């Protein structure tokens, strides 16, 4: 039984630059009681799809049909749609902090939601709210009823959101990236909770995510979106285990959790198309390793015997392109050649009220020349603070940081400036770490200017050379950061960091803000640069799969301490600490390959 039946949905959103064709001719059905996943990179139209279905994008132009329990949501009046929202269809958003009102207690907000749709007494609503909070396993629910959102952690807030979405027994729960803002261990708990609630309440869940690993774990069926189109759909294990569409195959090849460590990721080349003027024919044609001449014409929707649908001309399984070849490493890391030594480093922040807060607690660590050391931990464990301390951006309270055998505490200002040439940082946020008002050429040229290495024409030449190295078009030096995509901006950040030939580059979550296919491009670039320039990396991440893929050694941090340190495979294969085991079990598992021939049943649409 289909609870949601979307037929030929087209969504256009008018903007200043013209209409964004966010969703183009998408059809899918969600069956009653199933866990349906929509996966896609940013800009694939997946969020717009569900938001416009719910009438949450008022200025969008929609055509097609969205049948929910037999009723077309697109033709409902705003008032009728409002009554559906919450009561019949509820939504869970990505950011649990901004979706809860900070000025009201959590309990009040649930009661309010119940009473907005049903005529029940306050007491009855409160009893139900407490019951719900218990269901989502909030400890001591009756007492926490009167707590405010800021008194809950991120994971607890998302539990509250789930409780709220369940409060009216909706037939369909739409979860838009519900775990993206959470730590991986919490993420796993929330996913389990969602799956469990689906069992208990018999609700249907439609979850949107950019993360293939997450969806492969929980979804019954998945739909892969790209450039506003549905490229592939079908049962989760057969789509992800044996993709019929080259795009899905490409995504899996560029996901680090799905590739054996040491084997290079195979990124999807290029960038997603503009939704302002999507290409005619196949939207994926320009990046597709299997592209043929016929792909310039609109591809047909091919149905296979196992229920998989693929919007592609290809009738055979997609082929794997050759892995990029890597140059031999310049330096082989050895244990007697350390570049940074940290001894008994402690860092405390004074607090306005109460005791000082200890962020780093007696940390000792050494980074070997030429290696990649991974620093893993959940948010708030102090990994970024440690990196900042090593980069000399925060003075340590106690302890010694030695760089090339020299104690950094004794350095004068001028000596520090020299030291900065050797340690560089690539920041997490490719949007925040580049000044939006300055041209890219001058941003990348900053190191040359500050250290008076080159000026004028010579500096420009060096900048263009760097842009070439990191894979940017050197003619774009005159543009502003806003004119580049996320992955390109991260390349700008990398170019700036390697400008002065540093010895150590601190990478603070360099790929966590990027899409999977772009992540792979950047990770491969970093690998290449390390081999060619003999760099040493300190790689900070919360993503164990990425760390395992790129790092030689891994340090696991928890509560300001390093609790485990060892070779990547040792930590991964035989973890010693309970926390490490917990982290590992929360990380996405490799998706099992399903090797099976499928038979083409029918093909419809297309240009023939």
């Amino acid at each position, binding site marked *: 039984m289909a609870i949601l039946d979307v037929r030929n949905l087209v969504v256009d*959103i008018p903007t200043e630059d013209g209409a964004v064709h966010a969703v183009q001719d998408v059809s899918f059905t969600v069956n009653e009681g199933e866990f349906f996943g929509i996966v896609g990179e940013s800009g694939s139209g997946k969020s717009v799809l569900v938001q416009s279905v719910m009438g949450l*994008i008022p200025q969008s132009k929609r055509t097609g049909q969205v049948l929910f329990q037999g009723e077309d949501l697109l033709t409902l009046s705003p008032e009728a749609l409002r009554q559906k929202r919450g009561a019949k269809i509820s939504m869970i958003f990505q950011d649990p902090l901004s979706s809860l009102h900070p000025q009201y207690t959590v309990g009040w907000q649930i009661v309010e939601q119940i009473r907005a749709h049903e005529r029940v007494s306050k007491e009855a609503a409160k009893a139900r709210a407490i019951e719900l909070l218990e269901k989502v396993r909030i400890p001591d629910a009756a007492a926490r009823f009167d707590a405010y959102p800021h008194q809950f952690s991120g994971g607890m807030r998302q539990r509250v959101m789930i409780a709220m979405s369940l409060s009216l027994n909706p037939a369909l729960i739409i979860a838009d990236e519900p775990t993206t803002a959470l730590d991986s261990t919490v993420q796993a708990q929330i996913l389990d909770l969602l799956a469990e609630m689906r069992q208990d309440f018999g609700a249907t869940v439609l979850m949107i995510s950019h993360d293939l690993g997450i969806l492969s774990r929980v979804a019954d069926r998945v739909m892969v979106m790209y450039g506003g189109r549905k490229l592939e759909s079908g049962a989760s294990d057969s789509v992800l285990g044996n993709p019929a569409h080259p795009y899905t195959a490409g995504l899996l090849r560029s996901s680090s959790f799905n590739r054996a460590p040491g084997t290079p990721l195979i990124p999807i080349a290029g960038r*997603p198309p503009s*939704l302002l003027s999507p290409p005619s024919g196949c939207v994926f044609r320009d990046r597709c390793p299997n592209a043929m001449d016929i792909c310039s014409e609109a591809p047909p929707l091919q149905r296979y015997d196992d229920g998989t649908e693929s919007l592609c001309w290809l009738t055979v399984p997609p082929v794997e392109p050759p892995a990029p070849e890597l140059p031999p490493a310049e330096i082989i890391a050895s244990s007697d050649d350390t570049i940074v030594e940290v001894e008994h480093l402690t860092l405390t922040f004074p607090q306005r009220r109460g005791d000082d807060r200890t962020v780093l607690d007696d940390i000792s660590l050494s980074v070997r020349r030429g290696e990649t050391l991974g620093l893993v931990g959940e948010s708030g464990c102090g990994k970024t603070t440690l990196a900042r301390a090593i980069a000399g951006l925060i003075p340590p309270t106690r302890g010694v940081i030695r760089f090339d055998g020299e104690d950094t505490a004794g350095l004068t200002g001028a000596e*520090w400036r020299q030291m900065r040439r050797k340690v*560089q940082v690539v920041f997490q946020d490719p949007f925040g770490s580049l000044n*939006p008002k300055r041209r890219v050429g001058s941003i990348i040229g900053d190191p040359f200017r*500050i250290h008076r290495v080159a000026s004028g024409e010579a500096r420009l030449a060096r900048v263009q050379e760097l842009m070439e190295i990191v894979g940017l078009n050197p003619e774009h030096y005159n543009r502003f950061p806003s*004119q580049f995509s996320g992955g390109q901006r991260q390349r700008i950040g990398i170019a700036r960091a390697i400008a002065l030939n540093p010895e150590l580059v601190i990478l603070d979550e360099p790929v966590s803000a990027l899409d999977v296919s772009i992540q792979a491009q950047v990770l491969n670039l970093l690998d290449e640069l390390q081999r060619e320039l003999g760099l040493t990396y300190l790689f900070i991440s919360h993503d164990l799969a990425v760390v395992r893929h790129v790092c030689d050694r891994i340090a696991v941090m928890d509560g300001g301490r390093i609790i485990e340190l060892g070779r990547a495979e040792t930590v991964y294969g035989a973890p010693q600490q309970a926390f490490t085991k917990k982290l590992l079990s929360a990380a996405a598992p490799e998706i099992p390959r399903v090797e099976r021939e499928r038979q083409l049943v029918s093909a419809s649409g297309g240009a023939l």
Partner: protein
Amino acid sequence: MSVFSKDTKLITTPGYAAQKVADIQAKSSAQLTLARLLRDPASVISAIVIVLIALFAICAPLIAQWTGHGPAEQFRETGLSAAGIPVGPNGEFLLGTDQLGRDVLVRLAYGARVSLVVGVIASLIASAIGVIIGATAGFFGGWVDTLLSRIIDLVMSVPFLLVAIALVAVLGPSLGLSIVVIVFFSWAGLARVIRGQVLAIREREYIEAARSLGESRLSMMFRDVLPNLVVPIIVYTTLGIPAAVVFEATLSFLGLGIVPPTPSWGNMLADAANGSMYMVAPWMVLVPGLALLALTLAFNLLGDGLRDALDPTSSKGNKA
């Protein structure tokens, strides 16, 4: 729901960004701003009004020549009735005359010069001071911030008219003094805004990136902080002009600003109020009053329009 309308207005998908890259040769940010501004009728009309008033002010000597009336010249025979009452608008005096038989049109033109000069100069100086003080306070923090913030508080709590009257009583009214008084009382607002913005920008990652490269603090301030404040500075300076114009008119109205017989809109209004002249000659209050209203309204609307055009993400969300 504002959460979504903001997103939809500004979908920065990689594809969208790519499109912007493709368009880059065609549209610079100044051109984009101009295009947005031109789409807002209120801004366009305001800009036209401002340009017309500016032309009017620049052409004041031409108007005097054309009518044959000097700004302070008195026409007791033709400009006043037999009973000594000002004559209304007619063929010779297009906007009538005042109580001394002077041509209101010519005086209005010369008054516009005073208003615009005082408005623009005072606003520019006040902005410069506000930016310097605000940025210094925000960027250096610590005791510098405490000291400068208290000074800002102090200036904002001083009663404007009392000090103005006291100053003029001691030093005597003049154009220069008016500007000094207006600047003194208008820099603090912008300084406070700039300080807040600098505090916010100081925590951004690109500032940390600059620090990690070893950038000096002064150069960080000029290269990384100030360029990001261009929008509030432009908007506040534009909005500061009408405030300064009204300040000047107030001072002149009270006889503390421009010294008669030099015309200014403020002392023209004062003439109209004197002995209730407006009862018999309503144009004496209507003409400068409406001109003042038009100029300040135009600048305020243009300021609002500029803010929307320069920073479409800030307020368009609720309009969409």
